[in-house]
C-alpha cells in the first residue's frame, strides 16, 4: 500500500539510519532499496544535502516537534517542488523511536497557486487603478484651473505666460493618461450571467481545498436547497468569496474550522451567504476600519489590505450588503454568542 503512494516516505531511527522506505522514496533518491536500508544520509545524498538532512532529523528527535519545509529539486522531468514533513515517531511510552519523513510533489499545485495569486493581484488592480486615477483628477484639475486663471493676469508675450502655458499643456497630458488608465481599469468590467450560489462556492472551494487541508482547517458546508439563482459576474463573485475564505484562513492560522452557509429569506427576498471562522476574532477598536483600502493587520508583504474593500465593492455592485459579526451571533440558538470567531454575512437581493 505504501509503495503505491505517490508521496515518498522513510522511517529513520534515532541513530539516523534509514529503516523503512517506500518505492517513491527510491525514485526520489534514485537508489535501490538495499542501498538505503541501514544506511545514513551520507550514503544516500550528496554531502551538503546529507549534512543538512541529518541536522534536521536530529532536531526533530531532540525537540520532539515536527519540521515542515518546501524544497525545489531538479529531476529528469524538470524542476519539482516538494513539501516535506518530518514527524517524530514515539512508542506507547512517549519515547521517541525515530522520525517519519514524508514528501509530496506540489509542483502543479504550487503553480496553480502562484497563477492564482497573480490573477488575484491583477483583479484587485482594477479598482486600485481606478481609485488612484479618480483621486489624481482632483489635484490635477486644481493645477489646471489655476494655470488657466493666472494666464489671464499676465501679459501674453512674457515668460510667465509661457510657463503657465507649459503647465496647462502638461496637465492636459496628465488628464489623458488618467483617462487611459481608467479605461484600462474598466476592462475588469462585469459580464453578468445567471449564477447559482452553491455552485460558485463549490468552484471557490476547489481552489482552496488543498491549502486548507494542509493547514488542517476543516471546511463545513451548510448549504440551503432550492436557492433562487441571481444575476452576477461569476469571476467577481468568486473573487469576493475567495477573499473571505482567505481571511478566514489567515485568522485561524492552522487547526480550525471554517463554516460556509447559504440560505434564502423569502420574506426579505434575500440570499444570505455567510463565511465564519473560529479564529481569534476582530478587536472592536478596528472593526470600522476593516473595509478601508490598504488597511491591514498583516505584516508587510503578507497583505495589501485590498481583500475586503474589493469584496465590499463587488457586493455593492450586486446591490447587496455585507456585515461582520465578531464574535458571531448564533441567531438560531436563542441569540447565544459563540465564544470567539468572526462571521461575514452577505445579503443579496433576489426577486
Amino acid at each position, binding site marked *: 500500500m505504501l509503495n503505491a503512494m505517490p508521496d515518498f516516505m522513510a522511517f529513520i531511527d534515532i541513530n539516523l539510519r534509514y529503516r523503512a522506505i517506500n518505492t517513491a522514496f527510491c525514485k526520489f533518491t534514485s537508489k535501490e532499496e538495499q542501498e538505503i536500508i541501514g544506511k545514513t544520509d551520507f550514503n544516500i545524498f550528496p554531502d551538503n544535502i546529507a549534512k543538512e538532512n541529518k541536522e534536521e532529523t536530529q532536531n526533530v528527535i531532540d525537540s520532539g516537534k515536527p519540521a515542515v519545509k518546501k524544497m525545489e529539486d531538479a529531476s529528469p522531468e524538470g524542476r519539482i517542488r516538494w513539501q516535506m514533513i518530518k514527524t517524530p515517531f514515539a512508542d506507547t511510552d512517549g519515547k521517541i523511536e525515530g522520525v517519519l519523513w514524508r514528501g509530496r510533489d506540489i509542483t502543479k499545485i504550487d503553480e496553480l497557486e502562484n497563477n492564482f495569486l497573480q490573477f488575484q493581484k491583477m483583479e484587485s488592480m482594477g479598482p486600485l487603478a481606478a481609485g488612484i486615477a*479618480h*483621486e489624481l*483628477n*482632483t489635484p*490635477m*484639475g*486644481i493645477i*489646471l*484651473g*489655476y494655470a*488657466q*486663471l493666472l494666464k*489671464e493676469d499676465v501679459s501674453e508675450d512674457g515668460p510667465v505666460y509661457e510657463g503657465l502655458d507649459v503647465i496647462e499643456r502638461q*496637465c492636459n497630458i496628465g*488628464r489623458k493618461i488618467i483617462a487611459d488608465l481608467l479605461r484600462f481599469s474598466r476592462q475588469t468590467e462585469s459580464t453578468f450571467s445567471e449564477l447559482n450560489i452553491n455552485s460558485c462556492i463549490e468552484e471557490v472551494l476547489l481552489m482552496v481545498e488543498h491549502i486548507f487541508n494542509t493547514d488542517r482547517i476543516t471546511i463545513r458546508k451548510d448549504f440551503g436547497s432550492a436557492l433562487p439563482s441571481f444575476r452576477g459576474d461569476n469571476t467577481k463573485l468568486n473573487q469576493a468569496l475567495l477573499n473571505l475564505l482567505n481571511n478566514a484562513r489567515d485568522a485561524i492560522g492552522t487547526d480550525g474550522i471554517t463554516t460556509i452557509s447559504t440560505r434564502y429569506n423569502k420574506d426579505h427576498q434575500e440570499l444570505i451567504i455567510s463565511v465564519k471562522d473560529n479564529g481569534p476574532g476582530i478587536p472592536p477598536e478596528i472593526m470600522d476600519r476593516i473595509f478601508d483600502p490598504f488597511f491591514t493587520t498583516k505584516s508587510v508583504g503578507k497583505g495589501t489590505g485590498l481583500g475586503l474593500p474589493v469584496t465590499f465593492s463587488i457586493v455593492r455592485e450586486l446591490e447587496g450588503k455585507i456585515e461582520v459579526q465578531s464574535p458571531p451571533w448564533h441567531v438560531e440558538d436563542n441569540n447565544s454568542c459563540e465564544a470567539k470567531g468572526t462571521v461575514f454575512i452577505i445579503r443579496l437581493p433576489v426577486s
Partner: protein
Amino acid sequence: MANILVLDDVLDATILVKKILGKKGHEVVTFTEEEEALTFTKSNQIDLAIIDIKLKKMSGVEVLDELKKIAPSLHVMMLTGYPTLETARESLKLGADEYCVKPIDKDELEEKVEMILQKT
C-alpha cells in the same frame, strides 16, 4: 451677476471656482462642510449650487436632494471625479441641471454656468 454656492471637500477646489466665477462678476460663497452649506441655503438667496459628489459626510447626490427640498427652484451643477451611470441618473432625476466631470476646464465651467443661469 448671480449668487453661487460651491461645495467641495477640497478647500482649494472651492476657491478655484470662486476665483474663476468671481471674475465673471458673480457672488460666490464657498463651503467644505455639507451642513454649513445647507444652513446657508435656508437663509440666503442662491441662484446656482455647484456640488462635488464626493464630500466629507454625505454624498453630493444626497445634498442635492436636501437642497431641492429647501429651495426647489435652485439650479444645481454636479461636479465629480467619479462619474458613474448611477449617480448621473440619480442627479438628473432629482433635478440637477448639469452633471460634469472633473477636472473641469475653466472655459467649460464658465460656459456651463452661463447656460444654466440663462435658463432662469
